[in-house]
């Protein structure tokens, strides 16, 4: 049999299938070329760029206030944290710091974003493994977080709440109450999450020992975030290079040593609890004062290079700005977490089954616009 003239099997008797660019489990337009021996994966080759928009090139012609908003469209599930990274980089260049109130709100919003992102991931993880119901349970809490976001930022997904020097508006008066309600709801429902997936025999069979990534490989592949922490590599930027006052907060960096899909799953589950812990510390202690530092109408960064990294829901996002003193950046590089995490996919998927490939992709938690940028 031939498909478009392509031989069914390669010379070594391998069966080649293309997963994507339109495929339910790639979570976007990712294209994986997979060489199979029966159901066993011999080789995976990611083909990227289906939604490459060259945000780096676009940013070179945008002002320092405007380029931030393009980054909401990179990792749209942690749009808020992406914005924060850019704002922090510009602040670093200007030599200013956001006022304490702005910093506190930034942290609150970032942790809410992380929670909502992990909840969406949790639902999709169940969906990828064939259990449809977790998707709805994950979305239940995510929806109430989205409502908080909507009320304060005016947007649900791409919040665009950050400006250099602080945040765009002050929080909504209802914010604290609503967040407290959300937290109460989430804490009650963690048990349901565990009941639905964590303790399930089939789920454990599908994830334990699947997609092993050793700590050395995790470091070498530049994996960050829960992907690396599942292998026991400490890499939480909030601990290593604290920003916006994360160093004053009590929270743990979650490390698991399994290195498999189950470890990565457990890291994210525990991270949600840590986020709840951070929000609980902050929610009643938002300092009074300005929410924005006074900045000039047209921002100009001095000549030089500025690098800022933050911890998004998927790992370390680095923003590298090279300035020549003009009103827009000379060169911007986004070191996106998904791009590096994806490069480890081939290593993890080798020798696994097709079903495992889906599980591995789910635990890396790929967001394709962040890979392609």
């Amino acid at each position, binding site marked *: 049999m031939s498909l478009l003239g392509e031989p069914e099997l390669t010379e070594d008797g391998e069966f080649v299938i293309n997963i994507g660019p339109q495929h339910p489990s790639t979570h976007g337009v990712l294209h994986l070329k997979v060489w199979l021996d029966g159901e066993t994966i011999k080789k995976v080759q990611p083909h990227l760029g289906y939604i490459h928009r*060259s945000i*780096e090139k676009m940013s070179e012609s945008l002002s320092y206030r405007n380029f931030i908003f393009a980054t909401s469209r990179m990792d749209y599930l942690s749009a808020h944290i992406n914005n924060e990274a850019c704002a922090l980089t510009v602040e670093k260049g200007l030599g200013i710091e956001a006022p304490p109130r702005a910093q506190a709100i930034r942290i609150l919003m970032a942790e809410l974003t992380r929670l909502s992102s992990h909840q969406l991931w949790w639902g999709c993880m169940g969906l990828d493994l064939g259990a449809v119901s977790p998707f709805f349970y994950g979305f239940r809490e995510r929806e109430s977080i989205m409502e908080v976001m909507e009320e304060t930022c005016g947007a649900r997904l791409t919040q665009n709440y950050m400006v250099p020097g602080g945040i765009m508006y002050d929080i909504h008066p209802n914010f604290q109450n609503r967040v407290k309600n959300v937290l109460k709801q989430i804490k009650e429902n963690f048990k349901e999450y565990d009941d639905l997936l964590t303790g399930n025999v089939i789920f454990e069979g599908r994830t334990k020992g699947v997609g092993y990534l050793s700590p050395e490989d995790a470091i070498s592949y530049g994996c960050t975030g829960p992907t690396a922490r599942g292998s026991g590599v400490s890499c939480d930027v909030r601990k290593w290079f604290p920003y916006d006052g994360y160093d004053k907060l009590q929270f743990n960096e979650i490390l698991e040593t399994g290195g498999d899909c189950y470890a990565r799953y457990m890291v994210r589950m525990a991270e949600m609890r840590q986020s709840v812990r951070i929000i609980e510390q902050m929610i009643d202690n938002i300092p009074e004062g300005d929410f924005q530092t006074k900045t000039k109408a047209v921002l100009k960064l001095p000549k030089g290079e500025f690098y800022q*990294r933050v911890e998004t829901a998927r790992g370390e996002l680095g923003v590298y700005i090279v300035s020549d003193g003009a009103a827009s950046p000379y060169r911007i590089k986004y070191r996106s977490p998904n791009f590096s995490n994806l490069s480890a996919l081939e290593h993890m998927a080798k020798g696994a089954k097709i079903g495992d490939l889906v599980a591995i992709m789910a635990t890396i938690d790929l967001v394709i616009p962040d890979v392609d940028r």
Partner: protein
Amino acid sequence: MTTEELKLSVATLFPAATFDETGEFLNVMVNLPEFRNVMKTLRHNSELSFDSLFCLTCIDWKTHLMMVYHMISKQHRHVLVIKVKLDNTVKPEIETVCDIWKTANFHEREVFDLFGVNFKNHPDMRRIMLDDNWDGFPLRKNYVDENMISL
């Protein structure tokens, strides 16, 4: 290691390197011929042991291209930036580091795709984002796209 100590040990290992401390991190300018050797030493030297290459990119300075490598040692917790100047803007070439850090594989392909820098001995030097038959390298400053509509 503090920045000073780092500078000292790098300077003793590579006398030809020049330093730039204006930025946040210690920047080391390396010559193209000894670049590969420097990277290998940085990775495997037990005092430096830069095991994680967290950012690899290129800057087009119109007269020349500049390769920038950000690296961190998880063990010693110090950060270093290596910069290499590529004078040949028509056909820039540099040795690959993807056997030293596996993450460089994708990042070098990205730089090849968007800047046209060829990485010698790279196992899979193809375009990663754009079409295989795309004309030009978009992130170069002299790249002109006739079809672009500016909003």
